[in-house]
């Protein structure tokens, strides 16, 4: 007996196309997200575990889960967990994002943290 409704990530047995087995080049964005996770989940820091990451990713709305890329899901989870653990507040993040957007508008060429391939 298999249960009916299941979480978006738990897709074994669902209709699907072939598995994409190609290697994907990691962008600078991907590497940064990976680095953030490794630092925050490092046992010496212990802000959260990979299990908490998974829980956060699994609780994305299905429409977001499918629309976001692999590391974009990670980033959503890192953001949620950083707020959950009190490392940063949603308001602080919002403020910083506004600052960056303004700086980018003022000087598009000289953008700190600009993503270069």
């Amino acid at each position: 007996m298999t249960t009916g409704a299941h979480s978006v990530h738990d897709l074994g047995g669902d209709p699907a196309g072939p598995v994409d087995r190609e290697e994907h080049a990691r962008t600078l964005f991907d590497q940064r997200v990976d680095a953030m996770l490794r630092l925050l989940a490092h046992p010496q820091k212990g802000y959260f575990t990979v299990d908490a990451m998974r829980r956060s990713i699994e609780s994305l709305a299905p429409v977001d889960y499918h629309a976001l890329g692999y590391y974009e899901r990670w980033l959503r989870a890192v953001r949620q967990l950083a707020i959950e653990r009190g490392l940063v507040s949603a308001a602080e993040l919002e403020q910083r994002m506004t600052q960056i957007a303004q700086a980018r508008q003022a000087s598009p060429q000289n953008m700190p943290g600009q993503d270069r391939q």
Partner: protein
Amino acid sequence: MTPGSRLAAGTPVRVRTGDPRTHCRTPHYLRGKCGIVVRALGDYPNPEELAYHRPGMPALALYQVEFDSAQVWGDRLREAPYRIVADIFEHWLEPAGAAG
């Protein structure tokens, strides 16, 4: 399975049913299915607790369990039968007589 019990390779088991809304590592498609223990992988903190910033202790035994795809998928199987091997924690396993 009682906590602390050790399942030997070859032991027939059945995956518990249930549909927790909380974090769970047991794939839904294996719930209620019968399999055979391949080997014990060691004891690990419970990921269902770790996921919510709790310690997850005492550690639970994790087992590699193998299933027959024909039994898992039934008439949905679209290819030659194969072995499905999954890592399943002890609290998701119960004894099964002769594995079906």
